[in-house]
């Protein structure tokens, strides 16, 4: 998985940034060089007719050959240097990339396992409290229900409902256009979420990252940072709300229209059973509100 992702990123970066520039440079170089060569030869021909001396031709030729071989030597030196450099970098780069990716993958899996464990413990706690409540104190049950409702509002529970699923992918690379117009930016995602909010969506997630009040979407190179995780394309936005309203709002929105003009692949479909996972909270609630002091009215 990390290798795949890496390949995609690499491909994108190469395609977008250097495709056009390198192509132009190589043709330019060939032209310039051929042009120079022809000039030298013209001088040579003129000299021949004027002096009619064999010695001069040989000297001129030697001069040209000298320059040619100097250039050839430079090319060879440059070539060997880059090969050596590339080898070195590959050894250093690849091992560190591979080991870092493996380590990251391991930490992520560990994180998921811990999330799961935490979730189970929370359920177990609620269960025990419910038992206590049933045995004597109904107040606890009431509070448990209230807490669950608040957790739902905050996006801390898995929810289900009908709505829309939007899939976004970059436009295929085309040489004649500015590459930055062909890729999806954080602002596109922000605008799509805004349209969904305006159309009354009640819960949403991007690539199953639940969006809560303080969720951010940041562009970080060819990937987008959502909550605390980095994602490459494609982006899958899920939203629960009135499917028709959400669908129509998006189809008519400026952001989707513009993206489609640039050939960015946007598919919107209505679904009846969309499951949106809970926000993966790493910190406890207390530290998410540590700077807030309640003002009683």
């Amino acid at each position, binding site marked *: 998985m990390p290798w795949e992702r890496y390949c995609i990123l690499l491909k994108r970066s190469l395609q977008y940034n250097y495709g056009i520039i390198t192509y132009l440079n190589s*043709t330019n170089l060939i032209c310039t060089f051929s042009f120079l060569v022809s000039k030298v030869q013209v001088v040579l021909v003129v000299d021949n007719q004027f002096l009619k001396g064999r010695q001069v031709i040989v000297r001129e030729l030697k001069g040209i050959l000298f320059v*040619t071989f100097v250039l050839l030597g430079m090319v060879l030196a440059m070539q060997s240097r880059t090969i050596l450099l590339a080898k070195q970098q590959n050894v250093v780069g690849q091992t560190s*990339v591979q080991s870092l990716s493996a380590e990251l993958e391991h930490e992520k899996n560990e994180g998921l396992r*811990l999330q799961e464990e935490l979730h189970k413990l929370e359920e177990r706690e609620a269960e025990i409290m419910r038992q206590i409540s049933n045995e004597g104190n109904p107040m606890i049950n009431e509070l448990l229900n209230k807490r669950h409702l608040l957790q739902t509002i905050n996006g801390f529970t898995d929810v289900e409902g009908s709505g829309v699923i939007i899939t976004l992918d970059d436009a295929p690379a085309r040489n004649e256009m500015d590459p930055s117009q062909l890729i999806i930016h954080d*602002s596109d995602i922000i605008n799509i979420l805004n349209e969904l909010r305006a159309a009354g969506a009640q819960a949403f997630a991007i690539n199953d990252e639940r969006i809560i009040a303080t969720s951010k979407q940041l562009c970080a190179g060819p990937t987008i940072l959502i909550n605390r995780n980095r994602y490459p394309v494609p982006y899958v936005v899920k939203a629960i709300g009135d499917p028709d309203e959400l669908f129509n709002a998006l189809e008519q929105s400026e952001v989707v229209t513009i993206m489609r003009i640039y050939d960015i692949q946007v598919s919107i479909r209505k679904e009846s059973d969309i499951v949106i996972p809970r926000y993966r909270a790493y910190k406890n609630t207390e530290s998410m509100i540590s700077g807030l002091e309640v*003002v009683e009215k």
Partner: protein
Amino acid sequence: MKLFRDAAITVVCLLLGIILSVQYRSVKINNTVAVYEQQRVNDLITDLLREQENNEQLQKRIDDLQKDLENLRTGTNSENETIQELRKDIEELEILAGLKTVKGAGIIVTIDSMGLSPVDDSHILTVLNELKATDVQALAVNDERIIATTEVRRAGSYMMVNGRKLLPPYIIKAIADPEKLENSLTIMAGVVDTLKYYDIKVDIKQDENVIIPAVRDDGTVLRYDLLEPVH
């Protein structure tokens, strides 16, 4: 013979030219790869550190919860204590959901148009996103609390936020470390610079007592009737 020699040299030079250009191209690509590789390593390191910190936090929460569970099971916690704990949870969740008016150190950002072009919703959304990226804890635009489902849409000369019309200037209040919040906006080529380019004036003021009102609790803003729990 002379013609042959000239032709040969031309061909050699032409070939050399082609080799040079190919070389040039591959060097350029190699450089990109190297730069990319370096960036990739840096990204991986930051990701890894963040993930490790996340896991430490999670482990801490698990340990706390396990202790609580043990207390519950053995009956060390009395019913009153359990109720107290639940009340505390509820209060915290209410604050997080924006159901309470809150006060804290933060910044007040005033956004207004300097010329002909009015403030657009995208300008406000960019500022909000940047503040969210700085771990903001509470946000409001013209005292309309920003929650997960809050929209910001321009309609002519005013802005619709939480279904309510807001008129310029737009005053964004944010609670979190004021220094960090201000830096996140004023960073070079950041939001403030970008907005200046669009003829939008951004004024930032740090304040020790930013007050952010609770979300309107009339059932029009906080809606969750379409959400069903997953079993």
